[in-house]
């Protein structure tokens, strides 16, 4: 019997008042906290009689350490950091400035370099970074600035007062597999906040609650996500050129899937290598981790990695579908920043700089409220600030980029081409889109052997040196959770798993989860001989299951704070 995590009812919880609660300590949340601190400091130095305090501003971070759950390629466009901390390049942990970039179209054995790097992928002036290390550093500045960061605390549900977001409830700790308190039980705190800023990253769980409660997406395009699977490789000295950037398109994906690989040269002979698969592929048997393993077998890549060692693995989803998929950004008592809102430029494949800028704008709006003591002001301000900022300017130009690709690779290229000359308009001002999981086709309509996509389907076997099976890869994510706790992947109707999904889609959760959380195990009592079994402590918090399950019956909620992957150096 699967018991799922649910905040305990009918218990007394500690109540804590707050001015601002920022849920999530990634680049957006940290930039928001830092900017808020700067504004308060500036105000206090000019208004000795009317000081504002930072004591009631909190950042909640579910990982045990700041940055531990941060994963990205990553390339940083320094634009927003230069606004936040001029001269930041002197002290931030940057691996290398981008030195050379190339885009390849790859086939099974060959590759063809695009003679001109498409403008969105030109990275000159950007930096190769490890997001984990960068956020650790940014977090240290936030703490130095006197803002409290609560690590090991997750936001488990929003508190409402009518239609106002009144605060955040943190996770219950010390709850056993049956959702019963253990001897080390600690109830979650109810933080009554004047403003809640949601900075949870892609597919935020509180953001999802908010969107559902107020039907915020009713007039928006659905958010499409990609899943990025990453491995860090340590290569023989001299092989890696720090700052070298390579993008690939094509193999192993077919024209039916959208995605590609990245290879970024870091420092100390470490290279960041990964594959992004858009979660809108048709064959439910597709396994993104398998796609990455296939990719590594390309002669060009195999040669690059020869003699190297894989040192870390991770996966995360990220929002792809641009401006028309961004929900209303603020409301009564709430604001949404970063990937939770969907600020990502899918043509440039960059979102960190936008996350940081959005965090700064939210801080500026929140500061206005703190100053005036009137919290209804800020939320309207934030939306306006974003719409008149370079965030809108940048995202407007690529507002229809991803939707073009929904109809296939070449169609997408065609539309992208036109959009280049029309300021992003393309053939219509707003291209519609459909949710990724809606593209999944039933097994009955697909060739039993997988056809042209066969090499992408099912689990990778791995040779243990260049390619790995999922469990081996997963070990290198360092993921760890308190074992005795309820499952945090809530499946609202497990009968669908054993009665319908297994026949219609072949239980794709086993394939799209990069962490082997979902398994169909033998069970003679089930109609099709199998039932769903969970290994929740394997979870790497990527949110793919919440996004991609064809019946939309999975809700990911944070497990007990402190648990999760250890993305050192990622």
């Amino acid at each position, binding site marked *: 019997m699967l018991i799922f995590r649910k905040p305990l009812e009918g218990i007394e919880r500690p109540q804590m008042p707050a001015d601002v609660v920022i849920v999530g300590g990634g680049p957006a949340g940290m930039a928001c906290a830092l900017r808020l601190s700067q504004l308060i400091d500036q105000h206090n130095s000019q208004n000795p009689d009317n000081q504002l305090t930072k004591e009631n501003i909190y950042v909640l971070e579910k990982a045990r350490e700041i940055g531990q759950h941060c994963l990205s390629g990553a390339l940083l466009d320094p634009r927003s950091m230069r606004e936040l901390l001029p001269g930041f390049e002197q002290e931030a942990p940057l691996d290398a400035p981008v030195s050379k970039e190339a885009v390849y179209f790859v086939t099974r054995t060959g590759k063809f370099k695009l003679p001109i790097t498409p403008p969105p992928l030109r990275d000159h002036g950007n930096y190769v970074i490890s997001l984990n290390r960068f956020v650790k550093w940014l977090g240290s500045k936030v703490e130095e600035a006197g803002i409290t960061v609560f690590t090991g605390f997750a936001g488990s549900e929003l508190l409402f007062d009518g239609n106002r977001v009144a605060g955040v409830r943190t996770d219950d700790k010390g709850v056993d597999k049956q959702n019963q308190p*253990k*001897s080390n039980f600690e109830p979650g705190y109810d933080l009554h906040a004047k403003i809640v800023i949601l900075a949870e990253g892609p597919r935020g769980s509180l953001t999802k609650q908010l969107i559902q409660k107020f039907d915020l997406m009713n007039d928006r395009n659905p958010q499409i996500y990609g899943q990025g699977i990453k491995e860090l490789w340590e290569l023989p000295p001299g092989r890696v050129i720090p700052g070298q950037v390579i993008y690939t398109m094509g193999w192993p994906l077919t024209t039916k899937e959208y995605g590609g690989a990245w290879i970024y040269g870091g420092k100390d002979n470490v290279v960041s290598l990964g594959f992004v698969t858009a979660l809108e592929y048709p064959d439910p048997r597709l396994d993104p981790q398998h796609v990455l393993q296939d990719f590594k077998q390309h002669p060009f890549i195999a040669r690059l990695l020869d003699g190297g060692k894989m040192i870390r693995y991770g996966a995360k989803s990220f929002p792809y579908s641009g401006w028309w998929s961004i929900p209303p950004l603020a409301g009564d008592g709430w604001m949404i920043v970063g990937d939770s809102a969907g600020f990502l430029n899918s043509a440039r494949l960059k979102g960190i700089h936008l996350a940081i800028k959005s965090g700064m704008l939210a801080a500026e709006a929140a500061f206005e409220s703190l100053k005036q003591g009137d919290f209804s002001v800020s939320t309207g301000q934030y939306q306006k600030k974003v719409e008149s900022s370079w965030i809108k300017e940048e995202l407007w130009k690529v507002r229809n980029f991803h939707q073009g690709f929904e109809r296939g690779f070449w169609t997408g290229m065609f539309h992208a081409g036109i959009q280049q000359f029309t300021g992003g308009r393309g053939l219509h001002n707003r291209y519609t889109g459909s949710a990724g999981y809606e593209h999944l086709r039933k097994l009955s309509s697909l060739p039993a052997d997988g056809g042209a996509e066969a090499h992408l389907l099912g689990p990778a076997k791995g040779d243990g040196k260049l390619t790995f099976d999922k*469990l*081996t890869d997963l*070990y290198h994510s360092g993921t*760890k959770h308190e*074992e005795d706790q309820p499952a945090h992947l809530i499946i609202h109707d497990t009968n669908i798993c054993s009665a319908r999904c297994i026949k219609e889609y072949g239980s794709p959760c086993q394939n799209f989860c990069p962490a082997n959380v979902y398994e169909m*195990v033998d069970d003679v009592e089930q109609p099709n001989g199998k039932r769903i*079994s969970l*290994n929740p402590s394997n979870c790497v918090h990527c949110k793919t299951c919440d996004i991609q399950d064809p019946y939309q019956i999975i809700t990911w909620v944070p497990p007990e704070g402190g648990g999760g992957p250890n993305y050192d150096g990622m």
Partner: protein
Amino acid sequence: MSESILVVAEQHEGKLNRVSLETLTAGQALAAETGWTLQAAVAGNAVGPLANEVAAKKVSKVYAIVSPKLDPYTPDAFAAALKQFIESGKPKLVLMPHTYQVRDFVPKLATAMGRTVISDCIGYKKNGERLVFTRQMFQGKLAADVSFGSEPPWFVTFQNGAFRGDKVEAGASPAPVETINVEIADSVIRNKPQEVFKEAKQAVDLTQAEIIVSIGRGIKEQKNIELAKQLAEALGGEIAASRPICDSGWLPMDRQIGSSGQTVAPKLYLALGISGAIQHIVGMKGSRTIIAVNKDAEAPIFEIADYAVVGNLFDIVPPLIEEVKKAKAGA
């Protein structure tokens, strides 16, 4: 005063922790190489019998460091008692096993004496006059040689399994035992230990088992575990399992071995129907002898097994049980 090595043995509730014998083995090896005297100590309240147990091994002298304040264990009391003892006895090298309890008080003890600890060592070397201790870094990817730059006393802890407890030499005759009563002021002790959490008390401590029969998914059904239990019984060992077995509730979680379970290094590890995913291997790769039975010839467990048996465990285990029983009856 001649230079001495002090081994601090660990006891819980009147029983010597088996791993202390490993530390004694290390002490004996070091004493032989350096020519220094080897002494041992046991701290607690009524530890007389335990001190006698240690005195049966080849040591020059054993000290029973006693005080009612040392029971129950608190880090403050242990650090204070040992500091007093070490300041008067002045051993050059102090060795301890790297247990949870030692980790709790030795940093405090060393710092209080203005010293540091080289911890979780897997071995040592003698380079001329200098003692060098080896410890692992980055989850075993590197081994670092570390030596002391300060004045003695030098504190070292050794990792479980780094030395063989069964190789400890017995003494020709029992060593003299001296009881040292230490004074510990009440104000020194800041913790008041409460009742031990139920979860912390494990029904079985697999790290103390010398033979382990471990089962994986290959056991297929819960009722087949009985077969593995019979084998364990015949061998005089403990039963354990990889994660899926415990997750299904077929065995309790304290029988789980692996990255999210216990790490063991028994004399013999029998893996039945275990594929050898890396998460399991890290929990048992230190075992002296590994025998793996699996019908998949490509199972990764065979890469670390000393004896690889490719076959169906249901064909192999029943006759194996019989043979073991026969061998034991004949012996």
